[in-house]
């Protein structure tokens, strides 16, 4: 059955570009963003004048970040839209770009994310409502509580979570765009300073800055522009949702991930075990164990065993966070979701030098934003 994402002869990622994620610096955001956009244009073999519309995911730069940046590429009159949705800002910019292409509004669209380390202002702190605890809206506390429940209910040791960080720091050490480039041992992860509950600092994502860009083209334009189909990756599904009332304590975020992932897999027409790659929101280590179960790449209760067996490593059954994930590659917010798409594209092309997952044909990018919005995309080789 044809899906909306298949409109306009399908949506294809034809170019990717990155500015490495890094610790906060004085580098202007325009430099970060333009580096990624120019790299994506060069990768696709397209000219800026051919881009009809651009979506910019960012959280902390300010109003009209796109136009201020894009004028340095030439004032072509393209449509520019800024998207903010917390950690998922880039992912939602990508989804908007997919919609514009699939609905035939445009044939060549840029989706990018760029961010500087900001002051973390949140709408939840501006709703005029008081809270019993000053940390009620701090993600580290929410996920530390989630981690404690996980360990208690599973009878697991703290090593089970820490091994997620070991794997992802290891993957990041092979990724030239990652913020952390050092492998970490289990002993180092466990010995790093504690932040909240059982989460040590090396099990938490860093804040930073960076940029990521992808160019989307319709299937119709793919032929007209004579692009190499072997380097084009097709978007097979795009789904999004927000939180519902939590019926079982601690299950809200997990149900949110499960719902969007299952809807995306249904839209793509594949089983979760078909996925070769999964990039997901591992801002805190425990999330990867829980969300790998929720997405369905492993059975319920098997997340830690899946990791322990090596099934989620590069070369395993499904490489989870081959980029290094948020823990290792970094989480500059605006770019994070676009960086996931770039990583999956690079892997499916077979161009992830040094960290290539063999026979990578299908990948999912999954992201949540402040635990209350979720989004999933499935990508595949053009002719998978």
């Amino acid at each position, binding site marked *: 059955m044809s899906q909306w994402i298949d409109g306009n002869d399908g949506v294809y990622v034809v170019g990717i570009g990155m500015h490495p994620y890094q610790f906060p610096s004085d580098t202007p955001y325009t430099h970060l963003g333009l580096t990624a956009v120019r790299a994506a244009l060069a990768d696709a073999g397209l000219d800026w004048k051919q881009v009809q519309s651009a979506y910019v995911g960012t959280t902390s730069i300010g109003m009209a970040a796109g136009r201020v940046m894009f004028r340095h590429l030439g004032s072509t009159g393209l449509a520019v839209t800024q998207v903010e949705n917390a950690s998922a800002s880039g992912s939602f910019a990508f989804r908007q770009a997919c919609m514009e292409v699939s609905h035939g509004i445009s044939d060549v669209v840029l989706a990018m994310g760029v961010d500087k380390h900001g002051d973390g202002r949140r709408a939840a702190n501006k709703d005029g409502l008081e809270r019993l605890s000053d940390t009620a809206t701090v993600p580290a506390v929410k996920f530390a509580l989630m981690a404690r429940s996980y360990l208690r209910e599973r009878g697991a040791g703290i090593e089970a979570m820490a091994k997620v960080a070991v794997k992802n720091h290891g993957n990041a050490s092979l990724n030239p765009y990652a913020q952390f480039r050092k492998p970490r041992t289990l002993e180092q992860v466990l010995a790093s*300073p504690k*932040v*909240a509950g059982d989460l040590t600092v090396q099990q938490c994502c860093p804040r930073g800055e960076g940029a990521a860009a992808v160019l989307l083209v319709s299937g119709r334009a793919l032929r007209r522009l004579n692009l190499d189909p072997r380097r084009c990756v097709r978007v097979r599904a795009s789904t999004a949702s927000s939180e519902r009332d939590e019926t079982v*304590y601690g299950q809200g975020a997990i149900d949110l991930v499960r719902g969007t992932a299952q809807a995306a897999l249904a839209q793509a027409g594949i089983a979760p075990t078909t996925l070769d790659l999964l990039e997901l929101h591992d801002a805190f280590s425990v999330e990867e164990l829980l969300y790998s179960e929720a997405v369905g790449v492993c059975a319920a209760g098997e997340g830690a065993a899946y990791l322990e067996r090596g099934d989620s490593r590069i070369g395993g059954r499904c490489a989870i966070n081959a980029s290094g994930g948020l823990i290792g590659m970094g989480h500059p917010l605006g770019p994070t979701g676009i960086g996931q798409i770039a990583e999956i594209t690079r892997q499916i092309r077979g161009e992830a030098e040094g960290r290539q997952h063999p026979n990578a044909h299908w990948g999912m990018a999954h992201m949540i934003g402040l635990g209350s919005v979720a989004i999933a995309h499935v990508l595949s080789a053009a002719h998978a």
Partner: protein
Amino acid sequence: MTPDLSTLKPQRPSLYRLAADGHSLDFFFTHCPACQGLSFPANAPGCMHCGHPTEEAMQVVRPGGGTLLEYVTLHVALVPGMQAPSIAGDIRIAEQVVEEGVIAVDDESRLQPGMALRAVAVPLAATDTYGCQFVLAQETTR
């Protein structure tokens, strides 16, 4: 010397007030006329369960406290002015209402999920206000 809490103001007056015993806290809720659920805080613009407008909803005052669901020690100050280490927990303060609170025990090994907690007023240094912390319910009744 323990200050007279009745001379202090609540730090978050939309959430609680000093109870008649001069130490415990009462919490303010709204009672939804549509779904009969309780919402917290009471000044939220819609029922947290069904979204019904709360302008006409009746305010309900109940003893502050609840059931501990989960807890962790916060090892570093995660917000400005926060004391560390401290213990944070999720507490069910009413049916289908879970709020994070500060738990005033010196060691989390004294805690277990399912414990009954009671909200008490704690004077805040260098201010004329009191805040809210949760203590083990059995300790407040001694």
